[in-house]
């Protein structure tokens, strides 16, 4: 990559300062949108760019904005900064080092759907980042970029941060809305979807931090320019969070469609201590386990290609597993996580993650029988398609794929 589009602080020192961000064209796209474009025209540009949600679901961003019910007001925008998937740490880097580009993305989204208030929902652990964003927001008010009558127009906008308090489930958009409303973070039955019934019962757009951070440059340089990155159906760049058994873990901003091999070996410099790569989890703990053979390593990381390996791209949190790792132990780790994070609303997920976690502990302690292995798969299959949100589904991806693709780890 010649130039970073999202992790721009790696090219431009001090871009976290408002003056520096503005020297590099910051808030010009927002000003141009408010002063020269209709809200629908802004949405059309984002639609044409092919940008898809970077939080995991990959839903087309512009389409989401276009869904907003125009017969029900006010509208809200909520930025999803709850980043809690094990293996994901990209939004944090954006907010810490390039906060204004993210905030400008929130502001453009708000204008596009004519919201006058936007909330940024941060996981509670991002307490310091929230304080910093509050300072940024105060500076934007002082600079006349937030508040009433922006650029002499009738458009007014305010941004507020809202801190979660340690609940993975709040990354699910309807649980997040419940949480902002001061309730338990438990998902809602859908439909209706947030663009019709969202925050405080009003039409709401919920977008991930990375998604929104793409928006200012798309508006500044045009949809055609953005479409020149990535693949036919997966346009643009993506931040891949690389972790696990790899020499150089970290965030890598690369075009969608980059191969696993390029990320893990080319950038991450491969697996340490002379071990061999055994498996890849491309979407964090929620991921199916991919057998890391040559075919997998040469697969492009985009929304279409990863499913051909029986997995999803998700939030592109690539966890590398080497041949020293036993899948029994791995499942005990992911299942402990999901057991802890299940919100308790749907019985199959609440009870299922509990039982799967206990079975996995038995497997690790070598107190398990062959019947326990069968029971583990059985419980997993009973969770499938029976819950309001994806958490229950996510909890079984690693279980079912490990049993199917790494049977040797469960025999004897």
């Amino acid at each position, binding site marked *: 990559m010649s130039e970073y589009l999202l992790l721009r602080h790696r090219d431009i020192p001090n871009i976290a300062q408002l003056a520096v961000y503005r020297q590099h064209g910051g808030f010009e796209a927002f000003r141009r949108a408010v002063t020269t474009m209709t809200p629908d025209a802004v949405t059309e540009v984002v639609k044409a760019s092919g940008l898809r949600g970077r939080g995991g679901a990959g839903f087309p961003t512009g389409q989401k904005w276009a869904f907003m019910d125009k017969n029900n007001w006010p509208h809200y925008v909520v930025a999803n900064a709850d980043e809690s998937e094990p293996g994901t*740490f990209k939004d944090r880097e954006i907010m810490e080092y390039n906060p204004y580009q993210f905030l400008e993305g929130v502001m453009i989204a708000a204008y596009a759907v004519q919201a006058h208030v936007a909330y940024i929902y941060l996981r509670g652990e991002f307490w310091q980042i929230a304080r910093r964003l509050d300072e940024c927001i105060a500076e934007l008010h002082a600079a006349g970029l937030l508040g009433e009558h922006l650029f002499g127009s009738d458009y007014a906008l305010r941004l507020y941060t809202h801190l979660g*308090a340690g*609940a993975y489930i709040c990354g699910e958009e309807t649980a997040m809305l419940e949480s902002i*409303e*001061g309730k338990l973070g438990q998902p809602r039955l859908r439909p209706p979807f947030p663009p019709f019934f969202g925050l405080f019962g009003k039409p709401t757009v919920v977008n991930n931090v990375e998604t929104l951070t793409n928006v200012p440059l798309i508006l500044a340089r045009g949809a055609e320019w953005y479409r020149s990155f990535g693949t036919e159906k997966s346009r643009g760049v993506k931040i891949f969070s690389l*972790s696990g058994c790899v020499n150089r873990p970290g*965030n890598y901003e690369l075009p969608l469609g980059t191969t696993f091999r390029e990320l893990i070996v080319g950038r991450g410099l491969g697996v340490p201590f002379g071990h061999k790569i055994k498996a890849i989890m491309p979407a964090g703990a929620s991921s199916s386990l991919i057998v890391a053979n040559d075919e997998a390593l040469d697969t492009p990381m985009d929304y279409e290609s990863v499913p051909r390996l029986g997995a999803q791209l998700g939030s592109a949190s690539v966890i590398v597993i080497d041949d020293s790792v036993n899948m029994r132990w791995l499942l005990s780790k992911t299942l402990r996580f999901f057991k802890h994070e299940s919100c308790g609303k749907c019985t199959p997920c609440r009870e299922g993650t509990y039982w799967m976690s206990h079975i996995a502990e038995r497997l690790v302690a070598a107190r398990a029988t062959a019947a326990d292995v069968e029971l583990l798969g059985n419980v997993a299959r009973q969770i499938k398609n029976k819950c309001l949100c994806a958490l229950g589904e996510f909890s079984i991806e690693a279980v079912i794929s490990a049993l199917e693709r790494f049977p040797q780890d469960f025999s004897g």
Partner: protein
Amino acid sequence: MLAEKYPDEVAAILAKYPPDHKRSAVMPLLYLAQRQEGYVTKAAMQEIADICGIQVTEVASVVGFYSLYYDRPAGKYRLQVCTDLPCALRGADEFLAQLCQNLGIQLGETTPDGLITIEAVTCLAGCDKAPLFQVQSADGLTYHENQNLASALATIEALRRGEQQP
């Protein structure tokens, strides 16, 4: 009482949300309450319920649901180590065991001087800088990344001396 001790903060929190949705203030108010004692007292829950116009049991259920709120005291600092998969692949479990052994306490326990409570937590979004922990106190929350036993003990020593968290 929150309203007397932090009147500006309470007003600023309420101003974030529509006037007819005061319940939204419950989470930020709980953080404010925790700033006093390190946990949320029964009296604070009642006051928050009154401010938000909800029942105290609804406030208590929020405290119970979210893992960063506490309804009972612990050490002055909660040292919370992530042991999820990516961190565990980089030695987080061994790091945590060493730390507990060195402090002479079990997971979830508090050092005899009441300074440090050791806890294992789920992913903190710092997987590339594992092992890592966060320190939660009445004053907020700080991250400590790329840790080993020596650096963690140095942090604890600094906390013990009452120095600013490094």
